[in-house]
């Protein structure tokens, strides 16, 4: 089969998805078996969400769907229809980093950075719901995010510091 024909067959079986991503209305084409993670990265061009495992264990692909933290590798792309999705690209306010992004930077809470977008969004979801979490609550709240480089203490401290700043704000 020629490549051209294969492409057109692929196109025929594609689904059109409309949703809101980081406040903007977005529509994209995808196949039904594609994960939201792959659609975000390959169709929408937002590469902040990362694939660490593809099976829900590492949290690197975490995004907010209607405000709730979920693994985009465990979501079929067409499920996004009509939903509000937030990726790490939507956390900063223009040039102003989100307090979590700032405290992660200042506290050196990252090394290679693969896990960071997922940690930032999971921490945001945690603080949105519980503005003054205990250390234990933070550790459990971030249990779905794995980091192979940094060690968790700096990440926990960055979240604690951001919680203090957000409360003062």
């Amino acid at each position, binding site marked *: 089969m020629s490549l051209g024909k294969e492409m057109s067959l692929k196109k025929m079986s594609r*689904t059109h998805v409309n949703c809101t991503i980081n406040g903007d209305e977005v529509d994209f084409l995808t196949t*039904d*078996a594609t*994960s939201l993670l792959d659609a975000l990265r390959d169709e929408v061009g937002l590469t902040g969400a990362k694939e660490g495992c*593809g*099976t*829900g*264990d590492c*949290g690197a692909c*975490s995004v907010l*769907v209607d405000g*709730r*933290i*979920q*693994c985009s*590798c*465990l*979501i*079929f792309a*067409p*499920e996004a*229809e009509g939903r509000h999705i937030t990726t790490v690209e939507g956390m900063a306010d223009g040039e102003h980093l989100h307090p979590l992004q700032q405290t992660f930077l200042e506290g050196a809470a990252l090394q290679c950075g693969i896990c960071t977008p997922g940690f930032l969004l*999971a921490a945001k*979801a*945690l603080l949105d719901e519980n503005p003054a979490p205990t250390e234990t609550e933070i550790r*459990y*709240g971030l*249990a*779905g*995010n794995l980091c192979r480089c940094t060690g968790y203490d700096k990440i926990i401290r960055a979240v604690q510091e951001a919680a203090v700043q957000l409360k003062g704000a």
Partner: protein
Amino acid sequence: MKYAAPTTVDEARSLLADNPGSRVFAGATDLIPQMRSGRPEPAVLVDLKRIDQLMAVSHGEGKWTIGAATPTADLTRNGAFSGMFPGISEGAGLIGSDQIQNRSSLGGNLCNGSPAADSVPALIAADARAVIASSDGTRTVAVAEVVTGPGQTSLADDEFIVEFEIDDAPANTGDAYLRMIPRTEMDIAVVGAAVRLTMDGDTVTDASVVLGAVAPTAVRVPDAEAALVGSRLDDDTLAAVSAAASAACNPIDDKRGTIEYRTQVAGVLAKRAAVIAADRAQNGA
């Protein structure tokens, strides 16, 4: 593979009837990892989450009704539900991380058919029922009758669970679920134990004991229940509960736990869960 998102139970019914080889799903937290590891793709994937009835938790007429696709986070955060059934809430609350809890459903946890499913033992201990939609109507069966073996259920291909029903717990009733895992979070149960007790003062008047992860399906332990009823939870009773729980085990041997280990831990967890359930029955959750 086609994705479909019906908005009513009837629409889901016809999709399943018209498309043999299709599959319902809720959170896909079991389904997608299984597809990635090579399970065949269904012809049509039927997403149950756009059907309001399957996404609701409600209370009325002496029972709780829990939509089968509702994220478990919605159940564990429901204070009134968790107050009446702390053990069910504990079991459901152990499923994975927050990311998973915002997707994982009771229907998926049950129908995936894992012997280690954390929400199942306490649901069985509470005599929960599953309301099942099939092509020609609905039928209601005990949750205990849904899973028939690892990965196997008694549902026909065109059937799915719409909701779960749990009768209000009688006065002075408490439940508890404990599981053993090698880590503190994010692992699969080596043993799970649910106990539900109704007390009259210091005396147990009704008891359910259900174990997970120690047999091909969750198992009730009638000998432990018999030892509990009429007792005051003295040391001899608790020893009998432990012995009965260990005797009910028919576990696998794997890297998470040997047969001997699982068998012994089942006895320990059943005893501890009974003590917690009794305290909740007498003093509230």
